[in-house]
């Protein structure tokens, strides 16, 4: 009952009040207290939390250290490795290709690369992490399968995924984002990337959050990023602020994708016996107290983790990025229920009810 009242209050404030109100600040303040507590509990050295509203960022909460040794605090514009979140960018590029008619969702991968080990799978199946015949689809979360989609991109755009993504990042003004750690080593005009862009990547990477391994006693030790290049489902480096720009570009005009395309992506596929599967195209989709929730996560063991949760009906997106695997570690998120994450649970409990 009290939770419902709290959520109702938060919802009314978010809908009615366009200026910060005291009660509004109180809700965000308490939410921030929860985020701080959960960060400490998970032993995450540095975390950036951001909430995006209908047309702008409405709350930013960087906390902890992006580099312990040099005592550098995490900031709203700290770049993080976002690992599996790269999938939503790949999905956006592929769906744009579908919109312009270059490919169809039911094209098999063999059409783009006959030697692909996943050649029998369709683009739709890769995007939804499914396999098997229609009507008897089986879900298994395997982000590595997204790498097969680079062949689709090269047919659609006549360029590499990196080149396409780099252009997309510029288009959305995600100027602190880098398409893979090794992008800084490119020699222009490789992948169509200019000298100026390479310099910008180098500048962003200088501020890249340092990765840490955290033990059971919550002691953080210096680690290394295992992902050093961009693949179809991993390798993007971005900031919470930049991701917010991408999120807004998806949800507000001029849309990155047509609203009907996004709506189709955020619809769960149907498995055997009419069972709704947990992953739409590029994003997990589920209901929370009857409200659709769209989300995705990224993790690299002992290095980084990220989680993005969107509630379309509330026009809210929570973005979390961390420099350890503490946002995701030991949580069965790949099974398709975001409420196993205490961070998501607090967000949904506070703002959805």
């Amino acid at each position, binding site marked *: 009952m009290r939770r419902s009242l*709290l959520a109702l209050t938060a919802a009314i404030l978010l809908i009615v009040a366009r200026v910060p109100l005291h009660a509004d600040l109180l809700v965000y303040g308490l939410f921030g*207290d*929860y985020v701080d*507590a959960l960060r*400490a*509990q998970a032993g995450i050295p540095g975390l950036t939390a951001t909430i995006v509203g209908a047309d702008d960022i409405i709350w930013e909460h960087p906390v902890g250290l992006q580099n312990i040794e040099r005592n550098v605090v995490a900031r709203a514009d700290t770049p993080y490795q976002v690992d599996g979140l790269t999938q939503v960018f790949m999905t956006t590029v592929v769906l744009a290709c579908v919109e312009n008619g270059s490919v169809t969702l039911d094209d098999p991968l063999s059409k783009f690369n006959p030697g692909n080990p996943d050649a029998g799978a369709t683009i739709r199946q890769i995007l939804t992490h499914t396999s098997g015949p229609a009507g008897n689809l089986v879900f298994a979360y395997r982000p590595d399968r997204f790498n097969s989609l680079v062949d689709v991109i090269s047919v659609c755009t006549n360029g590499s995924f990196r080149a396409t993504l780099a252009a997309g990042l510029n288009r959305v003004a995600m100027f602190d984002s880098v398409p893979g750690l090794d992008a800084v080593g490119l020699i222009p005009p490789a992948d169509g990337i200019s000298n100026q862009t390479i310099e910008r990547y180098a500048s962003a990477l200088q501020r890249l959050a340092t990765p840490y391994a955290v033990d059971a006693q919550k002691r953080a030790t210096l680690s290394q990023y295992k992902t050093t290049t961009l693949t179809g489902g991993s390798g993007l480096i971005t900031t919470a602020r930049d991701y917010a720009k991408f999120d807004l570009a998806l949800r507000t005009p001029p849309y990155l994708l047509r609203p009907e395309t996004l709506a189709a992506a955020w619809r769960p596929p149907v498995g055997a016996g009419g069972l709704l599967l947990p992953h739409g195209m590029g994003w997990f989709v589920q209901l929370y107290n009857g409200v659709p929730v769209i989300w995705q996560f990224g993790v690299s063991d002992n290095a980084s983790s990220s989680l993005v949760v969107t509630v379309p009906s509330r026009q809210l997106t929570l973005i979390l990025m961390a420099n350890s695997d503490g946002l995701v570690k*030991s949580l069965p998120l790949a099974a398709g229920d975001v409420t196993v994450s*205490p961070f998501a649970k*607090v967000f949904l*409990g506070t703002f959805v009810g």
Partner: protein
Amino acid sequence: MRVGLLVIALLLMPSARASAEWQIKPFVGTIFAGTSTFTGDLEQAAGERHVTAGVSGLFLGEVIGVEGDFGHVPRVFQSTGQLVLSSSATTVTGNIVVALPRRWTEYTLRPYFVGGGGVMNAQLDDKFHLFTVSSSMGAWDLGAGVTGFLSDRFGVSWDVRYFRSVGGRDEGLSLGPEQLSFWRANMALAIRY
């Protein structure tokens, strides 16, 4: 080997009915060095010191005794109280006590070892009521103490024990199975009958 023989000899020693005694020990103390997997431990307070109180009842023969122990720890998951509104841990255990023979310690402190099992209940409620827990788990405890009597009836006792829950469930409100453990150090008024 010699220790083993001594133990057997002590156990077999005819426990004169007159040497058996009842003790009631109301206690106050502190818990410390706790650990918890409850997500609701938002203030990370389980590892801090908290006041505890309770009572134990002991029937002690010449060497062996049985004990029932009840302990309550209010605010076990609270430090600042900013996020956790209320919390407590309660233990009820049945224990075996092995003490030095009374005749050896007539005019001095009587040491004992204690161990057993029972139940532990953990409760907490947080501000947004998102991680509310009321969980009863199995528990075991192990420790030692000393008791000294100032008169035929009254004495004092000092006791240190380790409590650990077992068999906690994983219902999404903990990092892995629910678990709570802590050390308890207490001082008791010992009343002998």
